[in-house]
């Protein structure tokens, strides 16, 4: 094969060129070459610069600016290390903070309003319907929220016993980790079917159910419009949700409308689309701290008009209102679909332990991943779900329990209202009664004074054989006041049940009347003398 002559020539040219290049490099990198280059550099640079300034000033300006910025960024601007928190405070600032620091007590001092003796001394030893044995003494229970008397019913106890035998006691795991027992699911379905809702989700505790549900839906940036009288679990839920909250005056629909109108005006002023923000109205069905009902129809009308979602806490109203005990919606005759998120409790009227949230599938399914109490707490002990199902079946079979409860509540409220020196602050039909010292008598008293008087009345009732309590508010409730909540007035809190007999109620009224008379007389005497 004859070699291509041009190829050979090209090859020779290449080697010659490389040789020349090599010689040039050697020359330039030799000591003399480098020296020559360095000496000529300033002149060359100056010539280059002037040429540039003359021909392309933009080049100079922009490139200089960029180079200066890069130098500043890398060398002059101090890099902050976010993992070293101390770098944000100078030594002096740290010293100053340390000096100014005043340690707060780990446990705040005892609340003078709490009667320490009473709070811990009453230990229930036996329970038989409304009859209890407390510290060895037989009493009639006027304090427990066993509204329909279902906690002591044979069927409920049997169901609990059977479940205990079948599943053992605790479920020992959260719902997502083999803690879902079939009775949980059955209880949820039973509750949803009973209320006519799509689905229900069960939590192991009523208070944590309330505290978990609202934060699952409302986050930072959302708006909650809450009644100022909501009780502690809802206050916790509002705090946990990090949402913006506005309070309206307790049960005052006009004030609620004022708040709704203000928000709407703000929307207009800020040119804000209302769909950018999740908005809820937060109310209880029956307010635990006040014993009055939420005016649901007016509320729903407002909610529809201003397009808010409604969160209704039926912890104390489920099982106590409505012809069949379905709660406030049935009582007022409004469709359940108007309430987007509803919490019910199986710890109160149903006599078991736990809470549930009821709503559409969307609402309930969301909580299976976002409901804190559902995801992170161990699931309810299976026997509580079985007991709840049995209680629900009883309620369905015996709706007259609700009527009986209503009768008892009304009778008791009226009878207590006749006691001189006391006044009933709750609504007649409420099974949770709040009885306080009449305004005429307590005029000029301090809150602490009123609380002590009521505690003395309660103690006297206990001595007479009727277990009565005073309402107590934690420091959290007191704190909530500074945030817009309402601290309820001190009161005796009675819970009436459907299984209270007339004789028991009459006895309770008589005991309260005598106790009140005695204590108030003594107090009046003490005041005059002291």
């Amino acid at each position, binding site marked *: 094969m004859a070699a291509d002559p041009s190829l050979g020539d090209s090859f020779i040219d290449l080697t010659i060129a490389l040789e020349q290049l090599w010689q040039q490099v050697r020359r330039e990198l030799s000591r003399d070459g480098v020296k020559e280059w360095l000496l000529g550099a300033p002149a060359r640079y100056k010539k280059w610069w002037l040429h540039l300034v003359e021909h392309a000033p933009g080049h100079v300006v922009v490139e200089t600016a960029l180079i200066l*910025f890069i130098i500043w960024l890398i060398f002059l601007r101090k890099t902050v*290390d976010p993992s070293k928190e101390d770098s944000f405070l100078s030594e002096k600032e740290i010293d100053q903070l340390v000096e100014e620091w005043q340690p707060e007590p780990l446990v705040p001092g005892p609340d003078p309003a709490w009667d320490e003796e009473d709070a811990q001394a009453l230990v229930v030893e036996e329970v038989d319907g409304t009859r209890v044995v407390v510290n060895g003494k037989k009493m009639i229970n006027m304090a427990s929220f066993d509204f329909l008397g279902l906690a002591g019913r044979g069927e409920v106890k049997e169901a609990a016993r059977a479940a205990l035998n079948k599943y053992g006691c605790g479920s020992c795991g959260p719902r997502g980790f083999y803690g879902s027992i079939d009775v949980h699911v059955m209880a949820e379905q039973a509750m949803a079917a009973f209320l006519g809702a799509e689905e229900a989700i069960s939590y192991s505790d009523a208070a944590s159910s309330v505290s978990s549900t609202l934060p699952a839906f409302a986050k*930072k940036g959302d708006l909650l419009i809450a009644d100022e009288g909501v009780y502690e679990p809802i206050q916790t839920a509002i705090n946990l*949700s990090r949402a913006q909250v506005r*309070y309206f005056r307790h049960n005052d629909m006009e004030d609620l409308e*004022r708040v709704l109108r203000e928000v709407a005006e703000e929307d207009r002023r*800020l040119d804000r689309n209302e769909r950018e923000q999740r908005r809820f109205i937060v109310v209880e069905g029956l307010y635990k701290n006040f014993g009055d009902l939420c005016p649901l129809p007016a509320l729903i009308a407002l909610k529809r008009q201003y397009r808010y979602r409604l969160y209704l806490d039926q912890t104390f109203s489920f099982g106590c209102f409505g012809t069949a005990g379905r709660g406030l919606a049935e009582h007022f005759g409004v469709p359940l679909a108007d309430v987007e998120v509803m919490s019910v409790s199986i710890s109160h009227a149903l006599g078991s332990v736990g809470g549930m949230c009821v709503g559409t599938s969307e609402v309930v399914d969301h909580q299976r991943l976002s409901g804190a109490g559902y995801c992170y707490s161990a699931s309810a002990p299976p026997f509580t779900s079985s007991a709840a199902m049995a209680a629900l079946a009883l309620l369905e079979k015996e709706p007259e329990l609700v009527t009986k409860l209503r009768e008892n509540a009304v009778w008791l409220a009226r009878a207590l209202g006749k006691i001189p020196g006391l006044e009933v602050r709750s609504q007649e039909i409420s099974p949770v009664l709040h009885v306080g010292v009449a305004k005429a008598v307590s005029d000029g008293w301090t809150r602490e004074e009123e609380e002590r008087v009521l505690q003395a009345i309660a103690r006297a009732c206990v001595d007479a054989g009727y277990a009565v309590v005073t309402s107590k508010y934690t420091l959290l409730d007191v704190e909530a006041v500074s945030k817009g909540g309402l601290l309820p007035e001190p009161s005796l809190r009675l819970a009436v049940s459907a299984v209270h007999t007339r004789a028991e109620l009459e006895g309770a009224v008589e005991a309260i009347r005598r106790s009140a008379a005695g204590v108030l007389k003594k107090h009046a005497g003490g005041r005059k003398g002291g």
Partner: protein
Amino acid sequence: MGVRDSGNGLYSGMYFDGDRPASLYNKNVEWLRYPHFWWLYLGFVAFFVTLLRLTVLSKPEDLGRVLTVTHVVHNMVFFYLFHWIKGSPDNFSQGEFNGLTLWEQIEDGIPWTKTKKLFFLVHTALVFAASYVTDYDFSYLAINAPVYVFLGIIPKIPEMHRVRVFGWNKTAGIDDVPDDLLSSPSRPTATAAGGAAAAGKKNR
């Protein structure tokens, strides 16, 4: 929570070592601090340049156009991802980051960290390359410079933290509420029993 001796390797102080301050917990953005992300990021840019060079703008004199296109596209995408999209896909942060863009979420908004400086540098290097290759020609500068300044630099400076110009991209309930009202709610009007509603509500 003192200064921790976290060594001086490339990844020192990055992985969880039991003492990490909250500013580094945001799962949405903490991955931006790692060197392997940086390599991938620069790799993407290099890949884009190579792609353009090999396909559409392959003539030698097109290098300026290639780099300009890279610079502009890079800034637009970067602006959208880091300075426009808000929030975090983390469902369990209770909406903490709902009103914050990605840049504002990085390291809790602490400015001039290594991560942020590196982002500044990449932006600057891109505009430098694009302008240098086009010899600072005015028509190219007219595109590159505003894109660099307004999409690249201005949104990143700490003075623009949580600033929403003309109300663009603001979040209802977070940006239009004064900060003190966010943490303490408004009270209802006078709650004295039987009192008529006082005119207006007082914001704290």
